[in-house]
């Protein structure tokens, strides 16, 4: 009974916290709401007319939605890179970052699920996927695995921080015996969600571009580069705009993680390029299309080449200690890396898988305005969720929000 009371008070306090803030905060939230509304409007058009309002076709049957989904799974998985050192190895340098990391994971996962739903042809029958009342093709379908993996990861990443914050809210110390097993599982789970998502593509013999053993490891490497890069940027923003203190040491440590992951990612990229172009078979045609264009169709060229140059530049910058330790350069490099991997792991990965088609025909893909609208809306939703989570978490961590402390 008492717990419910505390919970109720926590909810009320959180609502109070999230609805109060500076002018900048309100502007930010208003902006996100506006973008979300645009997204919802676009989605309503898509619901009414079907997916024909998107740029997808029978040839390129997955597009921007699934690209973003794939990328965001990586971002979500990366939160673990902060969880493991903090909870298990007791590296306190990461401690302040970890809740932010898990917040990012939760919002990334919510975005993932939203992207999947946006991509569905029949969202009204999604209950067919719910185990128990629906029919679940487990263990055969990797998508079924993915649904379980993502929802499980979402559950873990909500419950651990919630437990910790709930204890802190009451001014108690969270019990490591409760959260360490959870943290451990989440470590495995994070690697799991990303591998499973990679296997989703890797397991298709129909698409030689994806059907390649390096896809899974590359997913992981790029995830551990892009995710922490985002965390660095977010931490930097939080450091500037809130009272939450994040030490330079923490940022530097995360930057090291980003650097190593980016280097590994680059090595794997080279290995992949070598395989595709040193001894090209007709299975290399997708890669040719991606990097050089095929039969005069070159829609992806500007994207992939800017992604690769950004990727290489960022990795070089990060690899040089002097540059990495300069925060302005670091933030810039992280932003570059994040965008580069978003392109590369997003439609740089998904779209060429479908081009050329099963019988060598080339149909290009360009997202439509409505598709972009929905995508932006979902990103705005992610940012919205994260802002709310982070604001509450920070208030509790900085001891500003405590049970019975605010009497009203």
């Amino acid at each position, binding site marked *: 009974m008492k717990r419910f009371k505390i919970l109720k008070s926590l909810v009320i306090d959180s609502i109070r916290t999230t609805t109060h803030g500076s002018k900048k905060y309100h502007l930010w939230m208003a902006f996100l709401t506006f973008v979300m509304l645009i997204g919802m409007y676009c989605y309503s058009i898509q619901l009414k007319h079907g997916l024909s309002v998107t740029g997808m*076709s029978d*040839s390129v049957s997955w597009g921007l939605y699934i690209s973003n989904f794939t990328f965001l799974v990586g971002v979500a998985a990366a939160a673990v890179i902060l969880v493991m050192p903090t909870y*298990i190895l007791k590296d306190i340098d990461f401690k302040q970052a970890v809740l932010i990391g898990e917040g990012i994971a939760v919002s990334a996962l919510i975005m993932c699920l939203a992207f999947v739903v946006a991509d569905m042809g029949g969202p009204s029958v999604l209950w067919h996927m719910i185990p128990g009342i629906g029919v679940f093709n487990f*263990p*055969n379908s990797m998508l079924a*695995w993915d649904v379980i993996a993502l929802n499980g990861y979402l559950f873990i990443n909500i419950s651990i921080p919630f437990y910790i914050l709930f204890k802190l809210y009451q001014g108690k110390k969270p019990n490591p015996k409760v959260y*360490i*097993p959870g943290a*451990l*599982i989440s470590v*495995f789970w994070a690697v*799991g969600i990303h591998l499973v998502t990679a296997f989703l593509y890797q397991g298709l013999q129909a698409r030689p571009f994806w059907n390649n053993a390096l896809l899974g490891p590359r997913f992981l490497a790029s995830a551990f580069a892009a995710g922490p890069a985002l965390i660095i940027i977010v931490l930097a923003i939080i450091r500037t705009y809130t009272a939450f203190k994040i030490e330079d040491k923490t940022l530097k440590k995360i930057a090291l993680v980003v650097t190593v992951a980016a280097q590994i990612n680059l090595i794997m990229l080279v290995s992949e390029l070598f395989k595709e172009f040193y001894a090209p078979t007709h299975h290399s045609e997708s890669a040719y299309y991606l990097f050089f264009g095929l039969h005069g169709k070159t829609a992806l060229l500007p994207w992939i080449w800017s992604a690769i140059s950004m990727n290489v530049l960022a990795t070089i910058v990060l690899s040089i200690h002097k540059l990495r330790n300069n925060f302005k350069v670091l933030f810039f490099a992280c932003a570059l890396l994040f965008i580069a991997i978003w392109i590369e792991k997003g439609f740089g990965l998904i779209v060429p898988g479908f081009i050329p088609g099963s019988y060598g*025909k*080339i*149909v290009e893909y360009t997202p439509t305005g409505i598709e972009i609208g929905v995508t932006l809306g979902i990103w705005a939703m992610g940012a919205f969720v994260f802002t709310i989570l982070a604001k509450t978490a920070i208030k509790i961590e900085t001891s500003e929000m405590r049970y019975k402390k605010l009497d009203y």
Partner: protein
Amino acid sequence: MKNKYHIKLYFASSFMLLFVMLSSCKEKEEKYHSIIDKIEVESKDYHGISTSSDIYLEDLKLIEITEGEHTFLIPERKSKIKSYSCIECHTEPLEKLQNNKKLKEAHWDIKLIHADKNTLNCATCHSGNDMNNLKSLTDRKISFNLSYKLCMQCHSKEFEDWKGGAHGKRLGGWAQPRASNSCVDCHNPHKPGFETRFPSWYNTKTEEERK
């Protein structure tokens, strides 16, 4: 003490992961290596099925033929020939008919586009003496209903395929009894090649998409 706890946890989770991986092998209902193996095994005790194409053949005039080990139905031909029987006009020998200016000209529209003049002319298949029947290269009588016997003299490979069912359009349904078109049901014997024509479908949307 703390360390031991961690090690235990690690072991437990690794074990769980291993278990998940082992238990997750794809379900396979099939026990055959390939479809050909499957067909071989499963058709061993084939005792026939209730589906039959009889009802789809009811309205067709068919005759049963047996060639080698194959017995099947082919369309009856004589009733489809416009001026059968031939002897209704061909009451006298051909030379006489040709010189008789009072008679209407017949068969003027037939132009033989089949092999070349060294190989074929009218008399290769039609007999001047027995207009109601066709004749083989060795002057044996062949009924219009069994005209395939005439074709097989040269087209022996096609004949083999036709008997087996690889050549010749199937009539009725896929089930037994089998009925197939005879040669002349698809090929005009005087001009056996297929005509060129425009396809009956064109997809403008596909064209647009691939621009």
